């Protein structure tokens, strides 16, 4: 447990939270690792876990009719993966697999929700950090969507 706490304290995501708060969250977490090529979750599968990547690269893919499986984004050290456990229908929106060996901290979604209900202040701290990541990522995805490198004839 204390090892996990040390790891969490060092992560930029938790900067600004009190030790007490981090300890509480640590109770829902555990260290996990995946081999290169492993599938972490598939589109449509039940969403329960969240991952904070410590090492390695994860690819998010979508299966399309015309183009096969397309990687739409990759996540790396320090990135958060997975929010679909927050809202119904609690199902993953894409596939996720490991481009390399991956070490991550896995958080139990429903457990995090229980903590937030019991301690709204802590719940707010978590939500604020999640939304910041989501907003930044959304802006980046918008730029990707613009297909800016294409030629116009």
């Amino acid at each position, binding site marked *: 447990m204390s090892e996990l706490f040390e790891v969490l304290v060092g992560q930029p995501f938790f900067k600004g939270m009190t030790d007490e708060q981090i300890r509480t969250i640590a109770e829902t977490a555990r260290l996990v690792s995946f081999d290169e090529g492993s599938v972490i979750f598939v589109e449509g599968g039940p969403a329960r876990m969240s991952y904070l990547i410590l090492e390695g690269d994860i690819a998010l893919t979508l299966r399309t009719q015309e183009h096969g499986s397309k*990687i739409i984004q990759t996540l790396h050290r320090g990135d958060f993966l997975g929010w679909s456990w927050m809202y119904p229908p609690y199902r993953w929106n894409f596939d996720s697999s490991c481009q390399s060996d991956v070490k991550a901290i896995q958080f139990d979604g429903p457990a995090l929700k229980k903590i937030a209900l019991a301690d709204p202040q802590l719940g707010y701290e978590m939500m604020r950090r999640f939304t910041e990541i989501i907003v930044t990522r959304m802006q980046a995805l918008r730029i*990707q969507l613009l*297909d800016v490198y294409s*030629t*116009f004839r």
Partner: protein
Amino acid sequence: MSIQLSAEPIAHVMSPVPCRILSVEQELEDTYTLEVEPPGSDWGFLPGQYTMLYAFGIGEVPISISGDPADTTKIVQTIRAVGAVTDALVGLKPGDFVGVRGPFGTSWDTKAAEGRDVLIVAGGVGLAPLRPVIYDVLNNRDRYENVTLMYGARSPGDLLFASQIHEWRGRFDIEVLITVDQADQNWRGPVGVVTSLVGRSSYDGDTAVAFVCGPEVMMRFTIQTLERGGITDDRLYVSMERNMKCGIGLCGHCQLGKFFLCKDGPVMTCAQMAGSCWIREV
């Protein structure tokens, strides 16, 4: 009345000089690199500059010089075929002639980057006008601290200068980070916007210098990300693009506010532009 306006001899101002094509190489589906014999032995250029290339009787376009400034035996120009004139240029063969005027424009300020970390951020074909500064920095490597190239393209098949990127990757004195907007399962690298690479490189935000080139929206987003990382306006260089017809500040098309990008640019610092890039349709 005795008005005596200076008039550059026609040969220097608006008169294209015929230069022999040495080679034409296809880089991507619509992108080609021409190697052209320089008009004279004293011809040279600074990284970031461009020439006006003239296809006899068809037209003239501004094209970035994408070669090594230290190699004065040839002018290397990377062209994207997007219209009548560029189609004509990429259709030329070795031994044919192309009209050359220039070089024109401002350059990437490598002097300002000496003793500092250098970030080179390229998007799409924006890698072409940045390649000369990569050459220049690597040719004088000991003048700089950490050097990082961050390059984003549409897909793995759209990576420009792919073999050269591979070469640079093999070096220990430059960090090369590549990303694409989308890829299939065979791609083992990052997928996402080029700014996502910024967080993955270590640089000293207080002193680093950044050279950025790509589509304007990509540059705006990159500027925001780099500024969040501590790089101030005066250390952020961008290559702005506007319609250019003359290269010498005569035709008025390339104006961005008070600047004639053909001669006050294309390379400018964000400090010089003082927020112009955020104003709608300026």
